[in-house]
């Protein structure tokens, strides 16, 4: 499934040639003699250069999609403190809030470092809410489901939160597997593995919690 791209509000992305971040240099050369460095007596602040562009379309689309996807997880999780009486669920929601909030910033930072337009999480999310097929493909809650979640409380909230978030995480796992299989950006590959680990942990936790409730 390839999510449709219809973010007309974003500028045309200047897609730089996707280069590998690290490529073997001289073919056949294993070792190179190091050049002696002239030791500075006081280290001047060295000019920092960003690495050459290293992403491909799969990387770029993953980030564009995952930012609003995470944003919904934040909105859902931020409902928990006022609606849930379950300490374990509130702790999990707080964890998701913290981690995915940080990850949104990380991903926006990645876009910025790579010279890509930075996705506005809220705007992209609201745009996505109007595309039911995309929501379904990504395991996201529909506007009706979000309203139902907001209107619920106590055990009913807990159950609905878990059901929606499990679906949400499963959608994320699909997207992560996709970028791990088709992307090439070094940093994203490592992040995606970490996110895959964290979200798989949470799916397991949530299924346990749900099983205990029924």
């Amino acid at each position, binding site marked *: 499934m390839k999510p449709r791209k219809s973010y007309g509000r974003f500028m045309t992305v200047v897609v730089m040639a996707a280069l590998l*971040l*690290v*490529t*073997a240099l*001289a*073919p*056949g*050369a*294993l*070792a*190179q*003699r*190091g*050049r*002696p*460095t002239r*030791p500075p007596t006081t*280290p001047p*602040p*060295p000019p*920092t*250069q*960003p*690495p050459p562009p290293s992403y491909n379309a799969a990387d770029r689309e993953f980030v564009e999609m995952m930012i609003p996807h995470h*944003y919904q997880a*934040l909105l859902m999780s931020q409902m928990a403190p006022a609606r849930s009486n379950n300490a374990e669920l509130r702790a999990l929601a707080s*964890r998701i809030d*913290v*981690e995915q*909030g*940080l*990850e*949104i*910033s*990380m991903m*926006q*930072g990645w876009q*910025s*470092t790579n010279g890509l337009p*930075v996705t*506005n*999480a*809220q705007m992209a999310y609201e745009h996505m809410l109007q595309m039911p097929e995309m929501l379904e493909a990504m395991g996201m809650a529909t506007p009706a489901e979000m309203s139902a979640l907001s209107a619920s409380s106590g055990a009913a909230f807990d159950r609905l939160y878990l059901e929606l978030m499990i679906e949400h995480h499963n959608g994320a796992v699909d997207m992560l*597997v996709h970028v*791990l*299989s088709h*992307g*090439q950006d*070094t940093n994203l*590959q*490592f*992040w995606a593995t*970490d996110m*895959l*680990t*964290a979200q798989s*942990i949470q799916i*397991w*936790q949530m299924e*346990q919690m749900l099983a205990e409730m029924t």
Partner: protein
Amino acid sequence: MQTSMHGRKRRPAARAVTALVGALVLMLGIASPAAAQADLEPGEIASSRNLRLVHNIPRTGVSANDIHSDLAFHGDLLIQGTYGGLNFYDISRPLQPKLIQQIACPGGQGDPTVSPDGTLVFMSVDAPRSDSSCNSSSSSAANPDAWEGVRIFDISDLSNPQYVAAVRTDCGSHTHTLVPGETDDVLYLYVSSYGPNANFPNCQPPHDSISIIEVPLDDPASASVIAKPNLFPDGGAPGTAGCHDITVVPELEIAGGACMGEGVLLNISDPTDPYVIERVTDPNFAFWHSATFSNDFSKVIFTDELGGGSAATCREDLYPERGADAIFDIVGEGDDRELVFRSYFKIPRHQTNQENCVAHNGSIIPVDGRDLFVQSWYQGGVSVIDFTDSDNPVEIAWFDRGRLQPQQLGGSWSAYWYNGYIYSSDITQGLDVLRFFGDGDVAQARRIELDHFNAQTQYHIDTNTRGRG
């Protein structure tokens, strides 16, 4: 010598940074920090008075654009891993280290260890490659023919390093730990990796295991995986699937494991058959990342790598117990040892939202009668803490740079004490050499010499320097 615990040289107005923060921290429904504190301008360096940068070697040569990662030491040789290979420095004169050799062999993260006799260097590769050669290109975990694992180089003649073996491991090698064998002619590598998924042919679930590579020292080319012990037969804590990093204590035949969802102690009396003897979880921990024991092995510091090293977790009013160190006392003996939580530590200096920052790799500074730990915090810099009182860890020294410009991931990946100096491997700045000053026992520490050092293979360091020249 005066020590200052936390201080800022200047506190410039946060004007431009606030604007940047406003642009980047977008309407998350969480209140952004009212004013992002910019403690240092880009390019500025600051430190406490008792920790000084004495030398920097920028990235250069074949790894000039690669992320620089972890360190290992043998005699006067410093080995630095990068995502593009290995750097070798002569540190016989620590104030003027020299880059003397580089190996170009891409595949992150480049976690290195060195054999006790100094002839072999091991390098972790956790990025699926087209093949095991140094000419490989990037591949994907979905490719059944992709290679990731541990590379073995013979550096007996450093002017002509030899790539002698490539050992593939399931899910690659994110980190590895050198474990001495029961005889001198063999050693083992505990390979830690994670991220299993049904779609990845060489990284299938459940992967609650580590891979153990046996390296015959007279024939390293024949190194191979001899065991894949399942450390968590019951599945472990939620989603624990293997470990992130393991630190072994050969003298006590135990190890500490940071295994994403939990921290563990292991019995390694048979190094080929480790097993878990104690497990702890913590609701504040997102990602159990590494373990370091105190010099007398009565305590262990676990680190939480919230955000994977790429997130700005050192923000002013947020998360003091997340992305931090957790200090545990070890009580009991043998397989009945238990981990008792004591306290958290996180650096008190807040970093900007553009600076990735979280607890990362460090090592013990051997000072008689005290528990000191030097540690990297990415763009949070380098920090030295005194955790002699497990309940009240205190920072006693620090070093920091202003945020990188343009914004990018960076900072100190590892900071270790070795033979009187602190060496910090910086993701974008290359290699920093720092001098830690103090009087009394701290000054004595500068005279202690190790003959080699791998951070995850801990030995008790004799702090009695009386009589040494």
